[in-house]
């Protein structure tokens, strides 16, 4: 479909092959849309290369060693040796399989793949600069475009990433030896997941956080379970401490923090991992040329069809705003492609689940009790402690609970908070319940396999009804 010498044309042009972009591309290909996907680095984006997948790979691998080391109570005596370089190789293999898979799936669905960095040239053209010196560039005309350029880590002033002393999550996922000690700046989900990995690998981990607790978006009783476990495995926390600067000292560094009262503390460590949030990548796209502006945080506003203020341009994934999660981006990618194909799709989901892969995991979906109240419901809450779950006991892992929030009048399930082993999986059933408009009665009536952690879903629901079997009803 060559339009001129150096200009090609495409019906749908997608910038960025992360979960938002590649899913949009595959779905568009399935729908028979002539689709071009431009990626400057690696298929799969942050998620597959430097985010979800490598972090979860290291988490599950370190858990294998940690669980064996801690299993004396179960009659297991093990002293596993971990070779981090070997673990990282394995993790890279996992990543390669998945990114290779994404590339193949795109091709199988007839997506044109273009390697290079795209920016807008005018309302219906992007210019793509190919990687490497003298590789040239090309222009691609489009009818519709999807911006899916994702996000990058936020830098703290005075803490530019140097990959050596001050590292990002991306660097942390590719270390080839275990640091003796690590200061983690930021106790959000990325900081906590990685702090846990390194503590289990034997690193002396100190977490400094500006706010007053870990995992700030979560309720106190949820984050407390994670914090207690983190402290058990040796992580030290310092709250109300803002990282102000650092200097080299000996083999490592000294990180200075300041509290509200201006008091300075110092933390010595081999490295500092800074994980204080992520910002959208929209500044390199020449958005002006297509008539778009971002909000002050750099996000693109979209409507319920994933469309920006410019009719022909969609935005999906991290650039389209919170929650900055892969599965939210995937859904937006699907919807954008379907809308371009003229289908009656919309972002009309009731909730986006979220998981934190700490020890134990946290999984949430829908509203908390407070949020339900603010939304005008009279919420009723039910809870099941893992301590009373037969399955949790057989796993030797009984921290946490499953909680459900429902509307007291009609019984509709509004939300759930789970902090437990496999919490990331357990919220799936709640997610379906919320989308279906299921009531407490519906979930309580569903037979749940014994012995499973999923039974705590049913028990929490029955607790909200005042008729749980395996826990006392309040």
């Amino acid at each position, binding site marked *: 479909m060559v339009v001129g010498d150096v200009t090609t044309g495409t019906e749908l042009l997608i910038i960025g092959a992360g979960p938002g972009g590649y899913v949009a591309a595959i779905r568009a290909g399935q729908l028979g849309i002539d689709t071009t996907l431009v990626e400057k680095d690696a298929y799969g984006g942050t998620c597959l290369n430097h985010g979800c997948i490598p972090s979860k790979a290291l988490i599950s691998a370190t858990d294998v060693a940690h669980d064996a080391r801690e299993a004396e109570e179960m009659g297991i005596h093990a002293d596993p040796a971990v070779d981090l370089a070997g673990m990282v190789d394995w993790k890279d293999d996992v990543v390669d399989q998945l990114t290779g898979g994404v590339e193949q799936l795109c091709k199988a669905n007839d997506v044109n793949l273009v390697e290079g960095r795209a920016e807008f040239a005018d309302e219906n053209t992007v210019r793509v600069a190919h990687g490497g010196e003298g590789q040239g560039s090309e222009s691609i005309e489009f009818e519709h475009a999807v911006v899916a350029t994702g996000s990058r880590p936020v830098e703290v002033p005075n803490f530019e990433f140097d990959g050596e002393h001050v590292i990002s999550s991306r660097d942390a996922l590719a270390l080839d030896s275990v640091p003796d000690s690590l200061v983690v700046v930021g106790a959000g989900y990325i900081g906590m997941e990685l702090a846990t990995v390194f503590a289990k690998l034997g690193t002396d981990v100190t977490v400094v956080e500006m706010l007053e607790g870990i995992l700030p978006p979560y309720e106190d009783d949820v984050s407390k379970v994670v914090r207690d476990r983190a402290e058990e495995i040796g992580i030290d926390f310092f709250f109300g401490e803002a990282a102000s600067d650092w200097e080299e000292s000996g083999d490592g560094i000294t990180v200075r923090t300041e509290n509200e009262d201006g008091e300075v503390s110092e933390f010595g460590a081999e490295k500092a991992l800074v994980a204080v949030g992520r910002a959208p990548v929209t500044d390199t796209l020449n958005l002006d040329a297509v008539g778009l502006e971002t909000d002050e945080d750099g996000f693109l*506003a979209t*409507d*319920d069809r994933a*469309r920006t*203020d410019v009719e022909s341009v969609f935005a999906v994934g991290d650039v389209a705003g919170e929650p900055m999660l892969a599965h939210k981006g995937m859904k937006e990618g699907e919807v954008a492609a379907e809308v371009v194909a003229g289908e*009656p799709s*919309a972002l009309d989901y009731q909730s986006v689940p979220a998981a934190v892969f700490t020890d134990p995991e946290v999984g949430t979906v829908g509203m908390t009790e407070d949020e339900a109240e603010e*939304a005008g419901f009279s919420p009723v809450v039910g809870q099941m402690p893992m301590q009373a779950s037969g399955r949790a006991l057989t796993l030797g892992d009984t921290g946490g609970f499953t909680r459900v929030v429902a509307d007291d009048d009609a019984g509709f399930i509004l939300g759930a908070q789970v902090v437990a082993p496999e919490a990331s999986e357990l919220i799936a059933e709640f997610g379906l319940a919320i989308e279906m408009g299921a009531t407490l*009665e*519906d979930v309580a009536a569903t037979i749940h396999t014994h012995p499973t952690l999923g039974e705590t879903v049913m028990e929490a629901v029955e607790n909200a009804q005042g008729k749980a079997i395996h826990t006392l009803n309040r």
Partner: protein
Amino acid sequence: DGSGSASSGRVFAAPSARRLARELDVDIGAVDGSGPGGRVSDTDVRAAAESDDDGDGASTADEPAPKPAVERVE
């Protein structure tokens, strides 16, 4: 106005019923749900579509989906 659309303006209906409402151009928030708590079913949506129509409702469901032209409202 069934209690299926609660105080929050939220509608309780399965994704398939919500999609059908879009397809049939029915405001699902205004549909009286016949399910528990006022949950709106696809049958409720179809009934609402037919009672909204001036006689040609029977064929609505078979028409191609309207091309969404939703502008950002703010």
